[in-house]
């Protein structure tokens, strides 16, 4: 159970943490190399570039080249981390990720930032709401969506140790830090284990990435306002997926709400519905973009407009339980 003050959390941007962790890893492991596609100042890979310029490669605005250059580097024993915005990595680089990186089983880490709606003002042309689905369907790909800066640090360190292709979906804005940096660790034997962030009996809120905070806030307020006991699951790993923990919670509550900054197809809702249908059929309600592109606006305004903020989760749970 989280001991973080959800009403007044500390804030930190996962992308900033990414840059800091990369710079720290660079000192620990000389095989780590970093590539970017002209967004090093945005993705924060510049932090690594400043310390290890000889191990940093700016490939310019060429995402296909970015991924394949990383692929080539990996064949010489390097551990490449490559970054740009999520839409450009997963979208423009998809065939390179699929055919060269994953099919060859190469040790490439694709770690884009600015995923989902919270990218904000740049609008739909830059907001990736399909990338989880695009990455999840590729055989052999690991897909990770950290919920805060603490998880970002741990999964980047984990990815550096793990051999194989990994996609880590990061975001732009300052986000609530919902985990204790001093004690948080991944289960080395089962890093994909879903974290039960809050236990409950009436309904299961399944979240990933930024929406974990919103689910926790909704759960706290549902308890306070209505005595509703909501369980909150944090799906850090979309693939491989921890079906067991999901099914155990669904068996207990009988009602599942998914919430993600992504299309309701193929991402978190996709994997949750697939696994529940096959293992323990349970009614699911899905919060995310409902087959609709994003738009310009602040991240907060977008989360509200597209129904994935704490209030939307709160209202969905309430209407379902009171029906």
């Amino acid at each position, binding site marked *: 159970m989280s001991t973080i003050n959800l009403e007044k959390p500390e804030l930190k941007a996962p992308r900033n943490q990414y840059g800091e962790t990369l710079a720290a890893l660079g000192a620990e492991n000389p095989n780590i190399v970093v590539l970017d596609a002209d967004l090093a100042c945005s993705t924060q890979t510049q932090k690594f570039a400043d310390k290890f310029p000889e191990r940093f490669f700016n490939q310019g605005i060429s995402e296909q080249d970015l991924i394949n*250059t990383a*692929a080539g580097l990996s064949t010489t024993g390097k551990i490449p981390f490559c970054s740009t915005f999520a839409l450009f990595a997963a979208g423009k680089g998809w065939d390179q990720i699929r055919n060269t990186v994953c099919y060859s089983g190469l040790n490439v880490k694709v770690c884009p930032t600015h995923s989902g709606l919270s990218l904000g003002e740049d609008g739909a042309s830059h907001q990736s709401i399909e990338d989880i689905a695009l990455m999840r369907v590729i055989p052999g790909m690991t897909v990770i969506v950290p919920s805060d800066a603490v998880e970002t640090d741990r999964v980047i360190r984990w990815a550096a140790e793990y051999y194989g292709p990994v996609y880590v979906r990061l975001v732009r804005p300052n986000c609530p830090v919902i985990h204790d940096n001093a004690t948080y660790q991944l289960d080395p034997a089962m890093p994909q284990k879903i974290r039960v962030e809050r236990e409950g009996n009436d309904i299961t809120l399944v979240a990933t990435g930024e929406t974990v905070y919103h689910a926790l806030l909704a759960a706290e307020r549902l308890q306070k306002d209505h005595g509703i006991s909501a369980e909150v699951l944090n799906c850090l790993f979309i693939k491989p997926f921890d079906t067991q923990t999901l099914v155990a919670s669904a068996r207990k509550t009988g009602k599942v709400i998914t919430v993600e900054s992504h299309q309701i197809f193929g991402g978190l809702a996709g994997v949750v519905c697939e696994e529940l249908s096959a293992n323990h059929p349970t009614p699911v309600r899905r919060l995310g973009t409902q087959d609709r592109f994003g738009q310009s606006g602040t991240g907060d305004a977008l989360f509200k407009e597209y129904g994935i903020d704490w209030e939307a989760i709160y209202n969905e749970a309430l209407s379902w339980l009171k029906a």
Partner: protein
Amino acid sequence: MSSTLESHPIPQSETTSPMSQSTTESRTIPAGLPRLTTPELQKVAAKLRIDILDMIFEAQSGHPGSSLSCIDLLVNIWFSHMVWDPANPEWKERDRFIMSKGHGAPAYYATLMQAGYIPWEEKNTLRKINSNLQGHPASKYIKGCDISTGSLGQGLSCGVGMALGLQLDNISSRVIVLMGDGECQEGNVWEAVLSAAHHKSSRITAIVDRNHLQIDGDTEKVKALGQMAPKFAAFNWNTIEIDGHDYQQIQDALKQADMLAEDTDRPTVIIANTTKGKGVSFMENQAGWHGKAPNKEQYEAARAELVAAYEALQ
């Protein structure tokens, strides 16, 4: 099907003479690395042409035209130029080779069979279920193949990454990327052409199999590539243009690329003008033979031509 192996023995490989290497070569040349003379290379290529045809006929699927256009290049690259270890495909200091035109897989596989990296027993498994010899090269199944190819346009970027990685480790191995000309219609190729020059990756040699044909016909009609050497030159590459079936020209170009790697900070491209389907008269310069297997009658006619050409070299 008759056996190529018994009726047409493979020429014996010469082992390496250190003299054949660049003067700046600091690697220990692996024992048993084949260094063939031009007549030997010609015999090997003539023999591998038969194997390519056999494989594609047996599979009833594959790309004969694209394989026959590049087999002379492959044989020269692997058996007179590249440094690799017959006993250890993972040798860290090996020259790297990327078959970016992955649909030339039969030619690549035949070359790797000759190199000893693929057992000859697998020859008849091309494109069959559970085979190591996938329709396009899959690195996980093929010794000596570092990266899977098939989706065109990707090999040169991978080569740039390899060159950067080798440079970080102070390994001066060459990186050789064999591309198709039609493949150069892919945007990723030109991203990589920019990158290689930007990173001053002089150890990269790209070779374009310029056979002027792609699936839908003449490259100049589908989407004109025009004069390719000036395009690469404009991107700050060294360029060499040769007849891709002339062994002296191929070997001279590869040696020149080595010298340019030392004398300049630019990558080098060899535009190798070739004939699609080279060696089988009715396949030559026919786009229709890009990706089609011969029927039995065509196979026998083609094989008779290739066997006659092989025997003429004995």
